């Protein structure tokens, strides 16, 4: 990974992005001159207390929200200048989202939920192989309400991954899970990163998760207060909290 940092240009780059909500005296700046860079295949963990702007950062990175200033470049494309239609096309081709709540379609099976996003890609991953990777092979024909929380989140990750997105954005993906399941999911993310080399941004409250990241960002009141390369990266299975 170190080598990659040296020879490649940044895959994901934000420069001086600003974002406010409200107007007049009620105006709140949630991102205030945020700049950072990520390289292809990196896992980046973003930490920060509630209201620090980490979810907003993820949303603007995914083109779900516009920014007031600055630029966001992903794989050489400035998405801050894209119109909604191009953004939609961009998300379709390049991005995968995983949320705290799985948002699975209740009347589709595990496999079919994953197929929903495979449909969007010209070169989706092999679904059966992915189901094995996710540990969902034996559950592939079950409906979401027949799965545990962890299995549902695996399915949501599979759905995001099946397009083989260049950038995987995860918002509190373990927030609704117990310790054991959360670690399993993080191990899965690690495995996916190693298998498919996607760049992954994980937003979390859970500080110890930073230990599995290549890069760590800490946000406070909309500003980056820490941005560093994690030299002592741990395997997900070794994380403790």
């Amino acid at each position, binding site marked *: 990974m170190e080598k990659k940092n040296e020879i490649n240009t940044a895959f994901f780059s934000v420069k001086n992005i600003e974002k406010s909500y409200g107007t007049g005296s009620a105006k709140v700046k949630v991102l205030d001159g945020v700049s950072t860079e990520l390289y292809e295949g990196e896992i980046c963990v973003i930490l920060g207390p509630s209201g620090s702007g980490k979810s907003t950062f993820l949303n603007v990175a995914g083109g779900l929200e516009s920014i007031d200033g600055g630029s966001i470049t992903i794989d050489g494309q400035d998405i801050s200048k894209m119109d909604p239609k191009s953004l939609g096309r961009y998300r*379709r081709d390049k991005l995968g989202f995983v949320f705290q709540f799985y*948002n699975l379609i209740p*009347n589709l099976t595990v496999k079919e939920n994953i197929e929903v996003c495979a*449909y969007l890609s010209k070169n989706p991953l092999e679904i059966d192989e992915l189901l094995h990777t996710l540990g969902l092979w034996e559950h592939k024909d079950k409906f979401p309400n027949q799965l545990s929380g962890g299995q549902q989140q695996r399915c949501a990750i599979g759905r995001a991954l099946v397009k083989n997105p260049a950038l995987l954005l995860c918002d509190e993906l373990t927030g609704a899970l117990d310790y054991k399941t959360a670690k399993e999911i993080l191990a899965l993310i690690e495995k996916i990163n190693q298998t498919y080399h996607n760049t992954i941004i994980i937003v979390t409250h859970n500080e110890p998760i930073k230990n599995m990241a290549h890069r760590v960002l800490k946000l406070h009141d909309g500003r980056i207060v820490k941005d560093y390369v994690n030299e002592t990266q741990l395997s997900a299975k070794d994380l403790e909290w």
Partner: protein
Amino acid sequence: MKNPLRKRFKRDLKSNKGRYFAILLMMTVTIAIMSGFLAVADGAQKVLNENRADCKLEDGSFTAVKKISTAAQAETEKLGVSVYENDYVNEKLPDEATLRIYQDREQINLVTVIDGKSPVNKNEIAVDRLFAESYGLEVGESLTINEVPMIITGLISVPDYSALFKNNSDLMMDSFHFGVGIVSAGVLQSFPANEIVMDYSYYFDNRDLTEKEKRNLSTDIKDKLVDNGAILTSFVTAENNQSISFIDDDMGSDVPMMKVFLSLIILIMAFVFSIVITSTIETEAPIIGTLLASGYTKYELIRHYITMPIAVTLVSAMIGNIIGYTMMPDFFKGMYYGSYSLPPMDIELNMEALLLTTVLPIAMMIGINFVALYRKLSISPLNFLRKELKKSKNRRAVKLPNVSFFNRFRLRVIIQNKKSYITLFVGIFLASFILMFGLVITPMISHYVDSIKQSAVSDYQYILKGPVEPENPGNAEKMTFSALETYYSPAGKNIEVSFFGLREDSDYFDDLPISDDEKGGYLSDGLAKKLGAKPGDTLDFVNPYTDKEYSIKVIGITDYPGALTVFMSQKQLNELLDRDSSYFNGYFSDQELTFTDKNSLATVITPEDMSKFGDQMLSSFKQMAPLCLFAAIVIYLVLMVVLTKLVIDKNALSISFLKVFGYETSEIRKIYLKATTLVVLGSLLLCLPLVNLGIQGCFLIVQMKLSGYLPVYIPMYLYAEIVAIGMASYFVINFIHMRRINKIQLSAALKNRE
């Protein structure tokens, strides 16, 4: 790769089978009724038009006091018209029925034999099919005509009597008491000469005349006949002859009414679907947010959500049309053949009906749901993920009155589901209107007939051909009668008005302040309402046989439901008609009068004649009531089951929470079901005045077709019946909802992670 979202359809259909079945049922029934009706109406119109052309239907007819001269006929025919003698006799049959007997026609108004054969021998007769069915005659039976038994050889239809009106001024056709018969050549001459009515039909040589040209030519024909010495007793164009044109007027209003009915139902169902979809979108907001964030476009999601309404509509259209063409025609044919004398018809595929019952519903479904989906899916993926589906966040909660907690809770439920409830209200209104239309006919006609009988001034009204004294005058009172016409703008044609000239001190109209010195007349209230006339107005009338025009001032309005009538002083009327002051041509009498010369009698009217009208009206509408009741109950049930279930579905989580908090099921029912019960009851009550207005408006159209005035009468018990039927339908649904609420598990709330 096909979109995997499509796999949801089958499962959605399975898990919401009740909802989709209800919608499918309602649309299928509507489309079946519509397609069947339009196919039959089209078939009837086609067979009518073909029969009129093939059988050379007259362009007009007239009767004369005596046979018109050859010269008069020749002069008239120079105008570009052929005149045919078409004499008849009115033969009295038992049960106050009249059979109008013509000689078999060879040149005009040709006969169509439906069953059996035409009469050949002098003791044979063929009778109109509808009259035979109504009166109870069959081929092979014997009928005494002119004191001679005649064998019925066949059942027929004639193009000049598609509707069996005895007199053109009759309020309604009457197949129970009036029919047409055909005898072979020469038989008519065996009747007493004074009973033979000199009737003539005319037929334009130029078949491409415009309506205006036809009217002008008819006027010229009448003038020419009068100029050549013909004494006409009636002259009527085919357009103004109710026996010919009533069916056109009837179908002319039935078909658009049915089209409006279909459009309204489909429109309501499209709104119902849009509410169902909107509710689904609200439930699935985070999923939609995820799909949009993953790259699904708005149009892909619109396509997904709009597929089900289109599919349901398409299936309804297919099943509806199959039923419409296989099972419904007999029902609608029964309606037409039970009212009109038509030759047999074939049901063919009607392209307009097919378009109206397939393309129109699908187009409406796409249009309304596309707009609803486009609006609903116009918010950002992030807002979907956050379940922030309202565009304005600053909307303040509606401030509720300071009532009990339960009432406030119920009000919140009503406000939350206002779209469903508004659609439900519209549906309840439509269903109640249909129900009222079906239920009101019988009491309205009975009331009308009763009021005529009650307000009858005399047991007998005799209209004579001239001033003749009866053999037993008794308390009979002389009067002058004349039939004039006035223009009735809503129908765009002239209507006949009876003028009665009364004595100043009339014993039969003692409430009417008739004065020989006062010009003008009193209008019967039906005439006043029909023409929108009030005291002080001046109305124009015309004598259709002389074209002489009269202006009559309205002195007042009097309660006389029997006919469209003007009452005035006999002296004034005689003066108006250029008659001697002593002239009279009729009697009011409470006893039956006898006249030496029976030929002097033109008409006798008794109050019982009106009950004949009642029988016919009730017979024409008898199939309407069960159809309306069925349609209304289907609409009530379907809309209630679909829309009120949404309220439960939308609040399933809240209901689960309430159970967790310790609310008992009965208390939860009080909140959620009572809110719906109150809305249903309120809608039923609120729509009653609107139903009343709708019925009044609807009968304005009916009035245009009638040559009289049928007052709208809605007895109070019908309102109660509608509320009772509506509430009974609702309680069936309510029972299902009660079970649904019982089934909602506490775990739904406990499992909820948001």
